[in-house]
């Protein structure tokens, strides 16, 4: 083979590789400007599946005069890297802090990409504990669903900074309120309120157009947290899942929880068995929400089993 043909081959390979690198996170949403300096990546709100690369949940970042604060990190290392690239296109300022709102697989696994860059990662202490104890199982589940390639480089990344309750911090030159209302959707939920814009990242507390998956919830605490958020009279809320909302819109998550809880209690009291309850207990107003077919029977099971233990 002649030298020129070698060069041509190498060039072709390099081109192919660069194309691959660019396409490394297909499906990556462009950041949406929510308010000055506040951006959100909006996931497709569906079930985690190979077709959506696990990009189902929302996350975002807040650009201050001195740096960037990232809120939640998506379902994979690859997604975390893609977030970093997307942030670079908006601002040259460094990422100062990552905040994980709660322990759930769609929110935590991009954190490894930020840790590689030496960025501190903050969560509620209970969320950090659950990430340490449980996320290897979440990771195995995601690998099974999305495949080894999509999850390459993903690893359990335990937050290195924790808070135990509502805390006001300054990050990147912006004031942020980390709101904790006690155990709610998980034992360690945080909602992040940007003081300057009044935009709230609600994490696991709010879903829009998608049934929340009950995993480690306390419904009374969750309802109380929603009431607390509602009282803040917020203009813009970025829910953990689905399109941004006005503050009033968050109460629909509470409606679902209340109706679900009441319906399961009714069935349980009437001696309906678990299998039958999973088939028959419905929350009709929500049956067109995403994930309903999958999450509704699972949510029924979860509440039913808790009733049994009482």
């Amino acid at each position, binding site marked *: 083979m002649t030298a020129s043909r070698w060069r041509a081959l190498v060039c072709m390979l390099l081109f192919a590789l660069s194309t691959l690198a660019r396409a490394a996170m297909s499906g990556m949403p462009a950041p949406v400007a929510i308010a000055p300096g506040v951006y959100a990546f909006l996931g497709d709100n569906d079930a985690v599946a190979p077709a959506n690369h696990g990009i189902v949940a929302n996350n975002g970042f807040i650009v201050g005069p001195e740096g960037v604060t990232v809120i939640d990190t998506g379902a994979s290392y690859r997604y975390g890297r893609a977030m970093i690239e997307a942030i670079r296109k908006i601002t040259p300022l460094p990422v100062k802090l990552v905040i994980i709102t709660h*322990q*759930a*697989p769609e929110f935590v696994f991009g954190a490894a990409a930020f840790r590689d860059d030496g960025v501190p990662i903050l969560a509620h202490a209970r969320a950090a*504990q*659950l990430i340490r*104890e*449980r*996320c*290897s*199982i*979440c990771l*195995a*589940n995601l*690998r*099974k669903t999305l495949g*080894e390639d999509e999850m390459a480089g993903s690893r359990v990344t335990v937050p290195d900074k924790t808070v135990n309750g509502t805390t006001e911090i300054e990050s990147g030159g912006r004031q942020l309120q980390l709101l904790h209302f006690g155990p709610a959707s*998980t034992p360690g939920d945080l909602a992040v309120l940007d003081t300057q814009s009044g935009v709230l990242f609600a994490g696991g507390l709010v879903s829009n157009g998608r049934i929340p*998956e009950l*995993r*480690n919830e306390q419904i009374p605490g969750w309802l109380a947290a929603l009431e607390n958020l509602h009282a803040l009279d917020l203009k813009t809320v970025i829910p953990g899942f689905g399109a941004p909302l006005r503050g009033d819109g968050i109460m629909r998550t509470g409606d679902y929880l209340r109706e679900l809880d009441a319906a399961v209690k009714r069935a349980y009291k009437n*001696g309906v*068995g*678990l*299998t*039958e309850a*999973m088939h028959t207990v419905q929350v009709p107003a929500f049956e067109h929400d995403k994930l309903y077919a*999958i999450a509704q*029977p*699972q949510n029924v*099971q*979860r509440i039913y*089993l808790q009733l*049994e*233990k009482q």
Partner: protein
Amino acid sequence: MKTTWSGTRAVTVATLAAALFAPYAARAAQPDDDPEKVVRWLDFKEGTFKGRAIDPHGDAVIKLDAPARAADAAVVPIAVNAQFPQTPTHYIRKLYLFIDENPEPYAGSFEFTPESGLATIETRVRVEDYTFMRVIAETNDGKLYSAIRFVKASGGCSAPADKDEDAAERTAGQVRIQAEGQAVAGKPELAQLMVRHPNRTGMAMNQVTRNYATAYFIRKVSVTYADKPVMIANVNFSISENPNFRFYFVPGGSGELKAHIEDTKNKQWDGAVAISAQPGGAQTSAMK
């Protein structure tokens, strides 16, 4: 990675470690696989049924109800629904439950009599991974029928982290047995049996102590009505923690529904409830 739970403990632990660190070395079962080509099933089938034919379209005998997707692999509710009432001349004698991908695939058996009324059983099981789950029904004429479902179960990734094993063991054995609704003489009546018990697999690592507790589970449940057997379960740790069974019996005028439970430490417990049935009229069957 397909060693059984019955192997030595060292092997079990090593297997689990391998499963944790390289969970994808083995290919997961898929719903479009041929369920009649699963080697562990074929081995069990040969060993247990010795070449007897099994009708794979057992829909007229039993239906297996299990969620296609289970969010918590440790508690997967299942129901085996008998499709005809038990009569002295035609009844289901035994149901075998087999979960292909479980480290111990054979979960156990449930035996019934004409006095059961209906050979329907509901319980909750542990399910490893993506797997076929199958129930084989043996009728009193010795014929075998199967029902099969594919279940995708995921580890509970936000389950409460750890339990107090000692406390779970201390409170083991509380038995609750009850009939659902008003019993009617001569009509199959639904009963529920709940036993508080850790029903440990011996395969789960305590995340705090990093230790493995030994396997400890209920191995036998015998239920009688008026001293005649109505449901006998020979089971293992494939049944979820706090075992729960729903099944039928046919009450007469009055009688006692009794449960006797034995676990692997040979601890025994009993539960009983007096049933006073209303006189039966021209009642329709409770069958679904």
